[in-house]
């Protein structure tokens, strides 16, 4: 038996191909949307992986450095190092801000890390693609390639200038902003230090306060001013566990004795995926539903129109004894063929377009398989209306009168 659907497609291939391209672009957008969601999740996991930590020690009752603001004393890490199961502990700060160079500025997450002697401490970029790690205590930076900065370039963060000494890759925040690593002290200043005018105003207020400016204690005013301008907080302490230590046990111990909140890797992942990007994922989910409905409507309309164009031929086919299932199969096969053409175009479009998106787009093979399955189901369902119309055609319509 010849393939009626195949012959019809070959006969009017232009109509099918151009319709398939239109549908494919829509499917491509759908795949990219799914890829954006996957990219957000992957960014979050990369952020956790790249921190190199097993535990995140943060301010009590907060969700950690990525989801909420957190402030921990910068000497806390020393006491954590003394606790059982803790192999390494390092301070870290995170601040998303504009980082400028001579001719432009980039939205980036500035990460303060302990430089110098603590090679490979938690929070450090785990690998570089060019240059070296930060070795000095001030004014050096390692940047992600996505910032577009290059080795030797001068950056401005708040009031200080930095030289790019190393380049890394795929180091991004949960929202996809590339990271800029700077020495911890500089990062603390960038985050907590006030500007000169604010310091001047604070000193004036302190000087006018008789409680601090006491004639019988001439050193007090100086000590208060110094404490106001020094930065002694960090956002979190990253902890790496000793071999054999159980994360939850160590976390419970720290929480009990240090009155801090500690998140394990699994908890941080749940916070990132379940809370930080939950709204975005719902938004993307809504878009996916709308795109699926629009795709179904387009396929249904096209197949319905193609069927109505053949209504007389269908009447003849029925009159000369063609089974209903043969006619239904012809229409459904055409709808599925349209879906396959559309999916192929969409997949190619998404694959080639993904790198040009500002945010990371991760196209997973299982999403493509699920997408193809969904497209075929949508096309099959969309052809039902046309099939119903075709099966209702009276073979008598082929006979005049």
């Amino acid at each position, binding site marked *: 038996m010849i393939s009626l659907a195949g012959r019809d497609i070959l*006969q009017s291939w232009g109509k099918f191909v151009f319709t398939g391209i239109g549908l494919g672009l829509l499917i491509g957008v759908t795949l990219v949307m799914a890829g954006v969601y996957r990219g957000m999740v992957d960014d979050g996991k990369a952020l956790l992986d790249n921190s190199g930590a097993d535990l995140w020690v943060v301010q009590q009752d907060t969700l950690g450095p990525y989801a909420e603001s957190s402030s921990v004393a910068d000497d806390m890490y020393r006491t954590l190092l003394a606790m059982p199961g803790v192999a390494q502990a390092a301070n870290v700060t995170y601040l998303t801000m504009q980082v400028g160079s001579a001719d432009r500025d980039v939205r980036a997450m500035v990460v303060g890390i302990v430089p110098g002697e603590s090679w490979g401490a938690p929070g450090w970029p785990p690998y570089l693609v060019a240059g070296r790690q930060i070795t000095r205590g001030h004014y050096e930076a390692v940047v992600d390639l996505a910032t577009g900065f290059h080795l030797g370039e001068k950056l401005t963060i708040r009031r200080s200038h930095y030289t790019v000494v190393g380049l890394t890759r795929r180091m991004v925040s949960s929202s996809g902003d590339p990271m800029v690593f700077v020495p911890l002290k500089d990062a603390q200043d960038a985050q907590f230090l006030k500007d000169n005018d604010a310091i001047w105003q604070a000193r004036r207020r302190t000087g006018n306060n008789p409680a601090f400016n006491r004639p019988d204690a001439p050193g007090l005013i100086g000590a208060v001013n110094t404490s106001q301008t020094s930065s002694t907080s960090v956002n979190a302490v990253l902890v790496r566990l000793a071999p054999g230590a159980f994360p939850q046990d160590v976390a419970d111990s720290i929480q009990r004795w240090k009155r801090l909140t500690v998140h394990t890797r699994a908890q941080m992942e749940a916070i990132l995926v379940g809370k930080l990007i939950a709204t975005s994922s719902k938004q993307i989910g809504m878009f996916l539903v709308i795109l699926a409905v629009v795709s179904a409507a387009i396929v249904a309309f096209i197949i319905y129109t193609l069927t109505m164009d053949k209504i007389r031929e269908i009447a*003849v*086919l029925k009159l000369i004894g*063609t*089974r209903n299932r043969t006619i239904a199969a012809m229409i459904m096969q055409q709808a599925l063929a349209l879906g396959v053409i559309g999916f192929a175009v969409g997949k190619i479009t998404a694959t080639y377009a993904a790198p040009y998106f500002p945010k990371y787009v991760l196209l997973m093979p299982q999403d493509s398989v699920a997408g193809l399955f969904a497209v075929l189901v949508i096309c099959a369902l969309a052809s039902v209306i046309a099939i119903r119309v075709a099966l209702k055609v009276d073979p008598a319509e082929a006979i005049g009168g």
Partner: protein
Amino acid sequence: MTGNGIRIEGLRKRYGSGDTAVDALKGVDMHVLPGEVVGLIGPSGSGKSTLLKCLGAVIAPTGGRMILGDEVIYDEGWKVRDLRALRRDRIGFVFQAPYLIPFLDVTDNVALLPMLAGVPNGDARARATELLAALDVQHRSQAMPAQLSGGEQQRVAIARGLVNRPPVILADEPTAPLDSQRAMAVVRILNDMARKYETAIIVVTHDEKIIPTFKRIYHIRDGIAHEESGAGATSGQPGASS
């Protein structure tokens, strides 16, 4: 010979019921022998199309009897279970417009019917090729319907009607879109094919040019058919039996 061609006795068809009922056929008798081509004429609304639809097993009559070959197919009810198979295997159709399937080439348009009946593709195409040769359109066998002239399309449609060797062919205004020369050619072909394949052919027509070619004519008016001798019975026109 393929039995007795087609015979109908007292065929009735009523549309609607009660006060609005319309009797489209009021007891039509007709008998067309194998190898014979008869004309079915009548004014609009006389019941021609209804009769054709009943004969084609497209609609069910209200009463009467229909015998195809030696088999009673309707006797106050259908006696055949699968009307679709009946239409496919035992009734050929030729329409006013050829209604060829536009996305199949000439050979496959003709071969489609035997394929639908389960004949292997090669055998179906061989059967189609033989008929196309008999109808002198074999040279266009690979062409698409849109590439054919009106006469060629109608010849392909006739080949499609004949391909399953049906005992009866119902032709609905087969010459309507054709000029005189081509119309007469189609009538000649129908007569040749009727004789060659011993098929009973009923031609519904308004075409004054071809009416004189029939040996017998059924004139239907107000749902009642009257048999008349056609001019073809004595004039030596293509419709005359040899």
